[in-house]
């Protein structure tokens, strides 16, 4: 019940704004990088987004939207996965959100070396051409392959492309 009340209130308060980004942009949104969380061989790594001081990007969601945040726990150095970060993103997107990639502008965001040295790539998916992403994906190199480690998106965007997709 509390959630419903809150949704109602925010929808009303925010009715004059087309996008939540208007207010969100005034906050301290940090750069997003992926930390590959490898330690030693034979471990599961919990890959994750992490904050980085300065710069960054925020989701551009409508007022009152839900934010979908997916995190994968990855078995380190498991062989046989996609050989590029783009392929890692493609594999996830094609399986889970058919048609998404054909309907958004995808730009490469920050690339980073995680603290353990594993390279990571960020991809920003802009669905309305305003330069602000409706989704952000992070792909981490895991041995010889690249695996999607996290995916944060406006739920309203995902609902347009989830038909026929598989988690």
């Amino acid at each position: 019940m509390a959630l419903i009340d809150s949704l109602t209130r925010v929808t009303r308060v925010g009715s004059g704004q087309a996008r939540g980004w208007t207010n969100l942009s005034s906050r301290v949104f940090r750069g997003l990088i992926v930390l590959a969380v490898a330690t030693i061989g034979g471990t599961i790594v919990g890959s994750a987004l992490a904050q980085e001081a300065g710069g960054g990007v925020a989701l551009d969601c409508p007022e009152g939207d839900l934010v979908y945040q997916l995190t994968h726990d990855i078995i380190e150095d498991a062989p046989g996965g996609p050989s590029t970060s783009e392929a890692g993103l493609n594999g996830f997107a094609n399986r889970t959100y058919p048609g998404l990639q054909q309907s958004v502008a995808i730009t490469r965001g920050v690339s980073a070396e995680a603290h353990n040295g594993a390279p990571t790539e960020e991809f920003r998916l802009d669905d309305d051409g305003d330069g602000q992403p409706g989704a952000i994906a992070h792909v981490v190199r895991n041995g010889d392959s690249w695996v999607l480690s996290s995916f944060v998106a406006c739920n309203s965007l995902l609902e347009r492309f989830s038909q026929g997709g598989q988690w």
Partner: protein
Amino acid sequence: MRTRLSFMGSMCFVASLVAAWAVSAQAHSGADWYPAKWPSADRVVNWRFVEPFPSGGGWRERVRNGASEWNSVSGSTMSFKNDTPDYASFSGTTCSSTAQKNAMHWGTIDGAGGIAAAEIHCTFLDANGPPGSNTTIHDFQLKWDSAENYYTGTDSPGSNQLDVWSIAAHEFGHATGRGATFGGVLTNGGDGHGHFLNSNDTLCPSGSNRHTMCQSYILGSKMFRSLETHDKDAFQDAY
């Protein structure tokens, strides 16, 4: 001699302060780890298995063991409750249309290796409030990759097995809200997603007292089963 001892004592004191700071820098407060939380009106978080989640072999008992670790933290106002009956299979590709339709899924993610488990938070985006304020968790979804090699017993897993109890305890930690984002803003604590950094040898040693919410689960181990001091502290502070 006395002066030297006093000097050494001071150095030890300073060193202890530095060590304490290093730990606290990793530990942080509840707000650092929980930018979004379950609604205050109802913090008994009901969840269900989703068909066709395994019903034998100790699977469900071990998953519930993981939830119980959090339920047993003293002084907390939040807990998990395994509700019945199972949900019919549904997709986790979007936030649930029903608030708090929390679920434990089973199925293929990417086959053996690669991704072992996936966890989803859906949080309500209150664009008019700061992170952590009026920001509530809508639902959580967990999925186990059916292709992996799991251990569902209560003894010790094999060296190449994933201990279900341990993984469940870790994932339910996220389901408490630990590491939930606020429109892309991530936790101040640890790696930004609710994990203590592996590089913190105090909280994430390779020994038996490795905190449940450390970044890495060591394959074949059962160290994540029981919550450690800072796992509990942040949870208690948040709830």
